[in-house]
């Protein structure tokens, strides 16, 4: 069993190479492989037939108890043989059918075809729900690919196929999920025999419905039948395989597989019998109306599958046996007939019955084969189809419920058999006899003709010795039957005595022959009506509707107004908090003593004032001052909460952020614009609501518990393990170092993003802004005194202002540097660590930058990116070293003399470098005074270019995203006109 699957899987892997080597003749090789795989399967099949159930299993996701397990039973054997043997015939046929010189057509065909088979075998042999689902979806996917490869015309049909079969996949996914959740196992054989099916009728009914719907989409039952005629856009071998042995049979297989659990569920019986019979009538009716032989064949598949589905719906051992037999029979005659249509198509260049010549004379052998296949489909004795049709008719009489139910089903199926006879006759008469066109008939290669005849001709001896099928059919029926019921005794033979079924068959043939004789009068009536109510139109209409809905939803978010985007989030949060508070406000434990301190009230008052100023101030500078107030008050509040590390970080971040804001503000107008009239009240309302919700949530959900176990661990044994005193820092670099590593990456990415954003700035002279730009605001006019005055000089020649600052920097830089090192070193045991130290280091950068009298870069241009890279690489490498101790970033401890060192110290170095790199980028790029126009020198564009390329004599003539070429050799420097050489 395993070897079969592996052999076909290996064939899948090597098939592309085979196609490259042998072109379309790969079909021969693959057919041999398939036959070998079928031969390898024989021991398993024999074991199954003698009553054993071979299994094989390998853990797949042990955490969830999901195994890759195989389990061969009677059903699996029948369907595996079908997939392999029909597959082999179809591949042989393909070897002659595919265009000989076009290797790409073969390349897109064979590998997918083999993948199709692998998925199919996996589906029928697996004993795991999840694998079943995956294989199910793979067959959908493979059929989509096979249909879609047939050129532009097949695009829409393949999409429709995908849409419908994946919808079915969703039904199955829902069923699989629910069954797993309810039964607690993914082992299929255990799920099917679980007690829940007897105890919970509601759940059982729901699952039966889901599985039935999934199978109906795959087996093209009404109203999902639309995709199957669509699928005939694919090449003939694909259709033959798809209709006879693969996708549509997967649906039948699923029904049979789940029949043990659902066979006595009323909704299962009713749905399958009704839909099945209706589909067989409806599909047959549509088939009669077709002129295209291949399309006719597609609708005939719909009709035939309807019969099988109805039989599975009956659910008795006899009915299941009949369904199995008809599945086999159908696979044989349908694959053959499809390939025959392919031969006709090759010989005449058309499949339209109105344009076909009198082919019976031109191709007598094919005519005989077609008649045999058609006779089997029509259920004429002594064909295999007769036996299976008898069985199906008999099965109908066993339909559950009152006795007349069975007879109604029997009668409907008899009518359906008449319809079947009629469209089958049309294949023969339309294809071979009625034509009067004088179209030329081309010779068709022997390979095509033989392989198309093979399945039909092989069916003949089987009919005469139908008893041969007894054992496999009985085994399959046992597998599909309710567990614990008596052994089925299906006995296949041509003669069972005079039975109602035999009489029905005689009646069917009688009526059929009458219709056949009067076909020229009857067919036009049906053909005229077929245009109405095309399923394709329905799907297209649904598709358009979905598109319209999508645009409607899109319109709600399709706006540049922040309110449209943020209001939903803010109000949604409010609603969630509101519901949570309403639900739980009276069940909460009391607040702990001492959560509020007098100092908190002071902070609240200060904070409220500052927030009001920052919100209402129209001056950018004023708002910035208020913002920094908030920062400082917030920092103090954090210190008062006993978080010295956090407070230190916050303080430094606030200082640096304010400097960055000031750098940015120099390029912007002095005031904010006036907000729109409608904006202010609605914004205020949303803000107050959300603020209230946030406050209520904090009050209700925080401060009501005792220290958590995690906190106790960190403060107790955790700190001892890590060998430090400053627990917050220990968490950052030892326990939760992965968080910190992610943060490090965010800092690096921010720096890269800032460079990318800033490099989109236009060059002021070379790419001047349009005169009529509504967003253009002229630089602020600062009322300066005239040239020569002290005030003028103070602004235009800033070196005088900077002298004191420079003196201070000279003095303080080494001290701050030492401070930074000291904070870095002591992080493990006292407030400090990589972040704090790096932020202090960044303050040096800020001070040096502020102390220069004119804008210039701090450090070499490429330094920031190098620092960031180094930081991330160091963190990664030291993280990798952690694997020595078992996991990424696990710290290693060692001693040099008396000094305790850990690798987390090196990790801290990485943090330090990344933070410093980000701050350098920020000062260097945001600090350039492109729009102040008071100084000459490097401007924003050039600075951004240099951050990537290194020192340049001027900005470059490309900007990222404008042209496909990258910076580097061949681009010119704008100011010099010379080519840039890195």
């Amino acid at each position: 069993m395993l070897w079969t699957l592996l052999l076909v899987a290996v064939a899948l892997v090597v098939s592309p190479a085979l196609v490259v080597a042998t072109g379309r003749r790969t079909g021969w090789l693959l057919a041999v492989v398939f036959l070998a795989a079928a031969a390898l399967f024989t021991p398993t099949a024999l074991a199954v037939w003698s009553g054993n159930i071979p299994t094989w299993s390998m853990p797949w996701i042990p955490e969830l108890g999901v195994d890759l397990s195989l389990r061969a039973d009677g059903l699996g054997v029948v369907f595996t043989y079908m997939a392999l043997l029909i597959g082999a015939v179809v591949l042989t046929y393909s070897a002659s059918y595919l265009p000989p010189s076009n290797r790409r057509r073969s390349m897109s065909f064979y590998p997918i075809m083999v993948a199709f088979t692998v998925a199919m075998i996996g589906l029928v042999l697996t004993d795991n729900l999840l694998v079943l689902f995956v294989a199910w979806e793979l067959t959908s996917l493979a059929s989509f690919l096979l249909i879609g490869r047939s050129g532009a015309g097949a695009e829409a049909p393949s999409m429709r196929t995908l849409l419908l079969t994946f919808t079915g996949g969703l039904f199955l996914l829902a069923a699989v999920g629910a069954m797993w959740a309810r039964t607690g196992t993914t082992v299929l054989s255990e799920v099917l025999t679980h007690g829940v099916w007897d105890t919970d009728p509601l759940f059982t009914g729901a699952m039966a419905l889901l599985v039935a719907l999934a199978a109906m989409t795959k087996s093209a039952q009404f109203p999902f039948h639309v995709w199957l005629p669509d699928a005939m856009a694919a090449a003939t071998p694909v259709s033959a395989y798809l209709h006879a042995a693969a996708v549509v049979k997967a649906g039948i297989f699923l029904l049979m597989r789940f029949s043990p659990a659902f066979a006595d569920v009323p909704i299962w019986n009713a749905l399958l019998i009704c839909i099945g019979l209706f589909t067989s009538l409806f599909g047959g009716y549509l088939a009669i109306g077709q002129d295209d032989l291949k399309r006719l064949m597609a609708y005939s598949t719909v009709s035939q599958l309807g019969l099988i589905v109805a039989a599975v719906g009956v659910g008795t051992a006899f009915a299941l046996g009949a369904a199995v037999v008809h599945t086999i029979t159908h696979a044989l005659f349908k694959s053959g007939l499809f390939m025959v249509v392919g031969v006709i198509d090759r010989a005449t260049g058309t499949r339209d019955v109105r344009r076909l010549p009198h082919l019976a004379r031109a191709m007598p052998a094919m005519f005989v084969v077609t008649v045999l296949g058609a006779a089997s489909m029509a259920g004429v004795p002594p064909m295999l189809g007769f036996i299976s049709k008898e069985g199906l008719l008999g099965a109908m009489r066993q339909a559950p419920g009152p006795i007349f139910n069975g007879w109604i089903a029997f009668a409907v199926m008899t009518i359906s058999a008449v319809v079947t006879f009629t469209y089958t006759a049309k294949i023969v008469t339309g294809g071979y006899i009625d034509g009067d066109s004088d179209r030329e008939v081309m010779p068709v290669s022997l390979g095509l003709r033989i392989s198309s005849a093979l399945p039909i001709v092989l069916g003949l001896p089987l009919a005469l010795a139908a008893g041969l099928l007894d054992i496999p059919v009985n085994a399959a029926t046992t597998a599909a039957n309710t567990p614990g019921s008596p052994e089925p005794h299906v006995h296949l033979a041509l003669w069972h005595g005079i039975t109602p079924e035999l009489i029905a068959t005689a009646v069917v043939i009688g009526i059929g022959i009458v219709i056949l004789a009067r076909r020229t009068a009857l067919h036009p009536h049906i053909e005229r009506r077929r245009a109405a109510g095309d399923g394709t139109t329905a799907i297209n209409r649904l598709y358009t509707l979905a598109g319209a809905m999508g645009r409607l939803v899109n319109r709600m978010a399709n706006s540049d107004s922040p309110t449209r985007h943020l209001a939903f989030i803010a109000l949604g949060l409010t609603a969630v908090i509101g519901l949570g508070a309403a639900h739980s406000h009276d069940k909460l434990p009391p607040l702990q003593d001492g959560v509020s301190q007098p100092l908190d009230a002071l902070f609240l008052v200060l904070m409220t004032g500052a927030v009001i100023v920052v919100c209402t101030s129209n001056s950018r500078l004023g708002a910035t001052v208020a913002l920094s107030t908030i920062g400082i008050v917030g920092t103090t509040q954090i210190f008062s909460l006993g978080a010295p590390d956090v407070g230190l970080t916050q303080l430094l971040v606030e200082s640096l952020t304010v400097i960055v804001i000031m750098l940015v503000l120099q390029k912007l107008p002095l005031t904010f614009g006036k907000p729109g009239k409608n904006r202010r009240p609605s914004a205020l309302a949303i803000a107050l609501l959300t603020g209230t919700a946030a406050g209520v949530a904090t009050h209700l959900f925080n401060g009501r518990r005792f220290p958590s176990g995690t906190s106790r661990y960190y403060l107790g044994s955790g700190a001892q393990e890590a060998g430090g005193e400053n627990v917050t820092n220990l968490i950052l670099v030892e326990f939760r170092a992965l968080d910190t590593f992610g943060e490090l990456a965010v800092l690096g990415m921010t720096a890269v993003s800032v460079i990318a954003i800033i490099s989109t700035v236009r060059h002021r002279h070379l790419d001047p802004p349009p005169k009529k730009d509504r967003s253009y605001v002229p630089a602020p006019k600062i009322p300066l005194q005239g040239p020569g005055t002290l005030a003028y000089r103070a602004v235009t020649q800033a070196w005088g202002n900077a002298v004191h600052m420079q003196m201070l920097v000279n003095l303080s830089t080494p001290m701050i540097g030492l401070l930074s090192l000291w904070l870095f070193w002591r992080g493990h045991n006292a407030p400090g660590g990589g972040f704090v130290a790096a932020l202090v280091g960044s303050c040096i950068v800020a001070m040096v930058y502020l102390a220069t009298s004119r804008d210039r870069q701090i450090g070499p241009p490429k330094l920031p990116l190098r620092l960031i890279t180094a930081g991330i690489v160091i963190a990664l490498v030291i993280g990798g070293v952690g694997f020595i101790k078992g996991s990424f970033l696990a710290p290693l401890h060692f001693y040099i003399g008396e000094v305790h060192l850990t690798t987390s110290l090196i990790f801290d170095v990485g943090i330090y470098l990344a933070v410093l790199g980000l701050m350098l980028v920020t000062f260097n790029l945001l600090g350039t005074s492109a729009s102040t126009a008071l100084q000459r020198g490097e401007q924003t564009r050039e600075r951004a270019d240099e951050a990537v390329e290194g020192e340049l004599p001027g900005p470059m003539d490309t900007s990222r995203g404008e042209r496909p070429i990258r910076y580097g050799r061949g681009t010119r420097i704008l100011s010099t006109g010379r080519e840039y050489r890195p």
Partner: protein
Amino acid sequence: MIISITVGVLVAGGIYLMLQRSMVRTAFGVSLLSHAANLAILTSGVPAWREDPILNVTTPDQAADPLPQAFVLTAIVITMASTILMLALSVIGHNDDLLRAPESGESHRP
């Protein structure tokens, strides 16, 4: 709990600022919101225990919960990064108070 009022005030201010057109105001709003979030996370460690979680200074019984502190410390640095990014975005045009949406090159309706 008094701090919960502080959180509410900060959130209200932050949301109000974020609903304005100006990019700089939006950046300020994000800054306020993150202050609020930081305080909310810190108080999840229960502010009844407020001693520094540094073991040679404090006994573990009195120490504040160090885990939220580690979270907030990370959050502060990320806030800094996102503020810088938003500030950079606010200076790539002539003015951050854009009343007109920039051309994106694609039409909104078919």
